[in-house]
């Protein structure tokens, strides 16, 4: 008997997603495949374009996180043209980027991850969406969420030129300076963001941590997978989204490597499978052992949780407080001043809210920095370009852009390792594990199962689909059960 789970339409990055689950003769899960059936091929069609256009072209890889591609592309131009941005440029870019993090993490938590907890994983599908959240917590909170997105998209447009697909990134610079009048407005927004982050963490504590069933679900084996954790850290090994080194720690917390972004090729390689258009990155220092967890497997995660796992802490006070609370609550021990990594995949949602607080506090720090209104943020660059790597933490994982050009700055080669791609193998494993723990000896498949399988990949906020980012964030999931002859014997949909 073959069971096939289809998630369709799920799109972005490289297109729609589909899960194929196969059962053995006893009705247990034999294997599960997470399939990405689309490819656009930016690495090829960007060749021949002027390098400086890349921040404006590659943001079309993802309309949900265009700011991340814009920023990775802009940093790649810094390296390509051998130009070091001024402190004012770096701070202005980072402040823009923090506004983006606040809106993106907010969208994910309230529209997508939140409904599973706030409304409940077994609530009827029709209620398990943002409107359900609003009904549960009140329309005023719904309006707060919308207002949070709106004010931060206003900042994105103010500094990036547009609300979606910004245009301001240049080698060594930024096209739009911040005026004092605008600064005052952004400071107010940043303060509101900090309050909103406090509110969101409290909501999580009340609704999720206050409910033993949810806590049990978070801690359950079905949603636990020990892998390596990757994340960007600053010079003090604190989480940073805009700049730093890439640190990778083992499942037990031991540091495997900390490297400069430009050296990514020494540490990361990508496997190809014939049944999907997306590649599977893995750690070269460990090696590819297949879709398996543990210290001997090169599979790694790059999520909000893995960024926290890979770091020593958070650089701002309220985020640090929330960080400590999470690790203490989840029973992590502090060894040599660092918490041991946690591997409960559903706690990615919690980590995301801690990052929301960090982004809000960081934004406030930056907007009150005296250099932030420096008018000279656009510079003339005369250096001969050749090759450059740019890296940021996208909300969905470490994002790397690598460009090569001729002496006129025309691209000759492009390589991209995109946020969600890092997590392709772990997502596939999480989906399989959730399916395995829930489908046993031909257990009748229920809607609850579908949602729990869905929750396994939703925690990663995968960029495979807008479905996972948008309002109200319900994903169409359908299960087709076939007998060994391939005849359909049962069809279930969570929307039935």
């Amino acid at each position, binding site marked *: 008997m*073959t069971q096939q789970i289809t998630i369709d339409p799920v*799109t972005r990055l490289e297109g729609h997603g589909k899960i194929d689950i196969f059962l053995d003769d006893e009705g247990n899960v034999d294997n599960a495949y997470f399939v990405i059936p689309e490819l656009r091929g930016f690495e090829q*069609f960007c060749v021949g374009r002027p390098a400086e256009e890349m921040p404006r072209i590659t943001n079309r890889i*993802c309309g*949900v996180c265009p700011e991340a591609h814009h920023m990775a592309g802009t940093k790649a131009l810094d390296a390509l043209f051998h130009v070091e941005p001024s402190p004012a440029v770096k701070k202005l870019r980072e402040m823009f980027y923090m506004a983006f993090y606040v809106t993106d993490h907010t969208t994910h938590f309230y529209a997508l991850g939140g409904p599973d907890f706030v409304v409940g994983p077994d609530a009827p599908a029709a209620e398990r969406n943002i409107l359900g959240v609003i009904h549960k917590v009140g329309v005023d909170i719904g309006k707060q969420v919308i207002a949070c997105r709106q004010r931060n998209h206003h900042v994105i447009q103010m500094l990036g*030129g547009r609300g979606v697909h910004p245009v301001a990134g240049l080698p060594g610079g930024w096209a739009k300076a911040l005026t004092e009048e605008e600064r005052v407005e952004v400071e107010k927004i940043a303060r509101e963001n900090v309050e909103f982050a406090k509110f969101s963490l409290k909501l999580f504590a009340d609704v999720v941590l206050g409910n033993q069933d949810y806590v049990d679900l978070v801690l359950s084996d079905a949603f636990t997978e020990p892998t390596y954790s990757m994340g960007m850290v600053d010079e003090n090994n604190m989480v940073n989204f805009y700049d730093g080194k890439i640190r990778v720690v083992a499942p037990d917390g031991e540091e495997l490597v900390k490297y400069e972004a430009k050296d990514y090729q020494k540490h990361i390689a990508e496997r190809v499978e014939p049944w999907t258009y997306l590649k599977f990155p893995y750690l070269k220092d460990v090696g590819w052992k297949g879709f398996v967890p543990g210290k001997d497997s090169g599979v790694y995660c790059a999520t909000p949780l893995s960024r926290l796992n890979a770091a020593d802490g958070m650089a701002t006070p309220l985020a640090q407080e929330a960080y400590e609370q999470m690790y203490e609550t989840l029973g992590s021990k502090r060894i040599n001043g660092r918490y041991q990594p946690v591997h409960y995949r559903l706690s990615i949602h919690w980590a995301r809210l801690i990052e929301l607080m960090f982004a809000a506090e960081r934004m406030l720090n930056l907007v009150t920095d005296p250099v932030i209104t420096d008018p000279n943020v656009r510079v003339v660059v005369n250096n001969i370009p050749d090759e450059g790597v740019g890296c940021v933490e996208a909300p969905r994982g470490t994002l790397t852009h690598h460009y090569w050009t001729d002496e006129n*700055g025309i691209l000759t080669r492009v390589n991209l390792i995109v946020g969600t791609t890092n997590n392709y193998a772990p997502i596939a494993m999480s989906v399989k594990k959730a399916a395995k723990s829930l489908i046993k000896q031909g257990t009748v498949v229920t809607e609850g199962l579908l949602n729990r399988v869905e929750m396994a990949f939703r925690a990663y906020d995968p960029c495979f689909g807008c479905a996972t980012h948008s309002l109200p964030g319900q994903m169409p999931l359908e299960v087709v059960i076939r007998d060994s002859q391939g005849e359909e014997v049962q069809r279930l949909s969570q929307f039935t």
Partner: protein
Amino acid sequence: MSENGKPKFGMYWASSCGGCEISVLNIGEHILTVDEIFDVVFWPVAADFKYKDVRGYPDGYIDLCLFNGAIRNSENEEMAHLLRQKSKVLVAFGSCAYEGCIPALANFTSKEAILQTVFLDSPSVDNPDRVLPQPVTAVPEGEIRIPEMYETVKSLDQVVDVDYIIPGCPPEPHQIWAVLQVVVAALTEGAELPPKGSIVGAQETAVCEECIYPKSEKKIFRFYRPYEKVPEPGVCLLEQGIVCMGPATRGGCGALCPQVGMGCRGCYGPLGEVKDQGARMLSAMASVIGVGEPEMDERMLEREFETVMDTLADPAGTFYRFSMSHSLLRRAKVNGNGHAEPEPAEAGTTNVEMAN
């Protein structure tokens, strides 16, 4: 209309980035109004629809369907046909569905080259067996199928009949809201809809008309890359030699990019009856390039013009940044069964030269 009297709304993406969806969300609190006005019957990101129900809907069941994304593979095309059949009004929403957008830059290269670059030549790829994705793969437990990638990226109107177009990458939120209000008035109060085929949610004038920088008659003698010059404030970018697609591009965005000192790249598509945005841009260039004397012979003039044009990086990829699917440059045309056929070059058009 539904039993509850509400018009039925659908939204779908094909080969796209999701930015169109985010732009719809960016209409802010109006999204709650949309939820009140419409009965959402198909919106993967927003509604608990039944996939099989879409196939089961009667023809024309969906009153308004916004289709974003280009046609990159067989699955995208199947969905386009299905939604055309099920929708009364089908809108090409955003640049990908309208004219191919960034994904259609792939029409400068080939499917084979894309697969080669991504899966075989990438510097980080580990593919000793030189595996490429296959439409059908036998795995130990059974068989996995993935859609067939097409040779050419097509716009929505190249595979089905389209009623309206909302341009932009993505369409700006205030324009989306304005269009939705018009549709609601038509559906609920019997107000008249624009003629079929109209471009809505945009202006009938160029981006320049919305731009805060006035145009003078200033001529240029070379182009500058955006990092080669800090633009003089308050002065038209093109007249400073910084490439801006404003003159060849339909307005409606509010000329956002030039306001932060970055040239327009043409995401709202060509203006008026013009199909080929690049050809239009080339003639706009001719009017701003300061070469030639009144008595100069045509050959000399052309040579001087070319000297200035040579300082412009990647004219084809710039002038057709968003419109390759509709460009006369496109190397292939699409026949009825969705397969690409070589198309003979259009003789005598200036834009063909730019492909070199």
